């Protein structure tokens, strides 16, 4: 890319321009920002996240109820009841407030899982792909174990043995969720490690650690980011299933899953208790999925429509 460009015939006017190549990430994100679907999903997701983060503030000042406050004059009030826009449950707790708090659980679990399983999965995938041989076999063995156990059954057993909170629940999901990341990272590393620049680094005396840290991992960031997005999707869906069955987050703290679990006994007289938590799960997961999908297309346009 030329640094200097002359405009017109006069050599006197010289415009100094920056390099036009803006780097891999800038190009990717610009492409991402141009995709209307991804951006819409991103905006909706940010709104949901903000409403979850500020749930205490919103519920106290705007709605006037806390998540465990009982309004005994309004049991099973339908949506639209004054004071309870989205109705109340069988104990008279405000549905909207509980939905906001439920978002805290889902999003915290989702992002913790993506973070932890991203770290474990990337680490194992990089060393398995880079070193191969017995390390690869060991990682593959661990992969096989986790992939062949019906994960929901194992999670329920673990949850019965060790009462989970948000952190331990996320840890359990991550410990069962890393194999997906490892598989993809390992595949990418296999193709990256035979590149010329890796050979060059090795010829110049770069250590294995340096090659992995400086030459491999930066090239994997976009892949990891995309996988992390899909991990969030899996974790939110998994947490809600587990809580729905009664083995996730324990009851006084609302989560979308345990709200649906409570709603089951009222599906005939209060169907709105069934609708709203599920709609929240659906919208949140859909947005995260679309953002991850958009990121993948943006970073690797060859994959588009594939």
């Amino acid at each position, binding site marked *: 890319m030329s640094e200097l460009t002359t405009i017109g015939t006069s050599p006197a006017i010289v415009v100094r321009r920056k390099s036009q190549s803006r780097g891999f990430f800038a190009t990717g994100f610009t492409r991402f920002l141009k995709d209307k679907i991804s951006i819409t999903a991103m905006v909706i997701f940010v709104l949901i996240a903000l409403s979850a983060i500020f749930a205490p503030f919103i519920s106290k000042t705007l709605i006037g109820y806390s998540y465990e406050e009982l309004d005994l004059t309004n049991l099973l009030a339908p949506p639209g009841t004054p004071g309870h826009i989205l109705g109340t449950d069988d104990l008279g707790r405000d549905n909207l407030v509980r939905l906001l708090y439920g978002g805290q659980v889902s999003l915290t679990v989702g992002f913790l899982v993506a973070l932890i399983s991203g770290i474990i999965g990337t680490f194992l995938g990089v060393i398995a792909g880079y070193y191969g041989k017995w390390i690869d076999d060991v990682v593959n*063995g661990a992969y*096989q*174990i986790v*992939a*062949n*156990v*019906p*994960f*929901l*059954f*194992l999670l*329920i*057993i673990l949850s*019965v*043995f060790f009462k989970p909170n948000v952190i331990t629940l996320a840890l359990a999901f991550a410990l069962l969720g890393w194999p997906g990341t490892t598989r993809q990272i390992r595949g990418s590393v296999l193709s990256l490690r035979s590149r010329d620049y890796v050979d060059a680094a090795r010829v110049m005396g770069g250590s294995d650690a340096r090659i992995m840290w400086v030459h491999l991992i930066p090239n994997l960031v976009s892949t990891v980011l995309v996988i992390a997005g899909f991990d969030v*999707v899996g974790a939110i*869906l998994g947490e*809600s*299933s587990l809580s*729905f*069955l*009664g*083995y996730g987050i324990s009851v006084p703290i609302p989560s979308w899953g345990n709200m*649906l679990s409570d*709603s*089951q006994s009222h*599906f*005939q007289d209060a*169907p709105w208790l*069934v*609708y709203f938590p*599920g709609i929240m*799960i*659906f919208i949140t*997961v*859909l947005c995260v*999925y*679309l953002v991850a*999908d958009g990121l993948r297309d943006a970073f690797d346009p060859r994959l588009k*429509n*594939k």
Partner: protein
Amino acid sequence: MTRFIVRRLIQSVLLLWVVMTLSFILIQLAPGGPDAVYANSKNIGPAEIAAIRKARGLDDPLYAQYFRWMGQTLSLDFGLSYSYARRPVIDVIWAKAGPTFQLGLMSYLLALLGIPLGVYAAKHRGKFGDNFIRIFTVIFTAVPHWWLGLIIITVLASTIRWFPQGQGSDNPWDWFIHIIIPALLLATGGMVAFTRFVRSETIEVLSQDYVRTADAKGLTNREVQNRHVLRNSLLPVVTLMGAFLPLLLSGAALTETIFNWPGMGQLFITATNARDYSVILAILIIGTFLTIVGTFMADIAYGWVDPRIRYD
């Protein structure tokens, strides 16, 4: 090929051994220890506990317990169920295997509909049908299938005052209307996975040189599609057919609970609610065993249909 089968067989046995060992450790870690696993009941006194400890040999050294437990598990002796009138665990599970098998098989067949959907989407890439299928797959990825079950029950109950609960009678029509909704919902995850996978495989194959060559030679479209494209694009689907099994089992726990389907998934949840540890651990081990067998068979089938796969 024989070498490959033997190799995979050894791997599968090793895998089963590791999972069983981990289950044994899990039993030791259970709150209250193995006593609790075999005798979880509030009404049980020290005398009964002593009797159970003696019967299951829980006073022996750990390694002796481990080997005996392995032997018992391999002969399908999972002890007695506490919540099901103290019947042998394996009998309790066996009684529920039939309904789960029916539901699982039905879902599996429905999920395979994803294959023609994927082929169709690939052939009409970027057109209306493809976009429609894509929206369908995205929606069904994001929506929890068990919540859809709740919605269907809610809507059907309030409109036509009917919701599919339980297994239905022997009358084939009655059986069908009871199984179809839970089976469809259980199938969604697999159907979406098959559709996506087949679509991208088919698109990949369509851009191969040998397809262009076949086209250039003047073969009819149908011949190219059937002999050159589908044959190659559908082969890898076999591997996915094995991977769908654990998903099916986990999904069954939710679907069977919601639709009151008397199968292993529902048994797992009721046994967990009753803290009937021996039943839930037995289901975990059996479920893992079935998955390992399924994956093994899928791998063998893949090696058999695709002679290019040379494992060594």
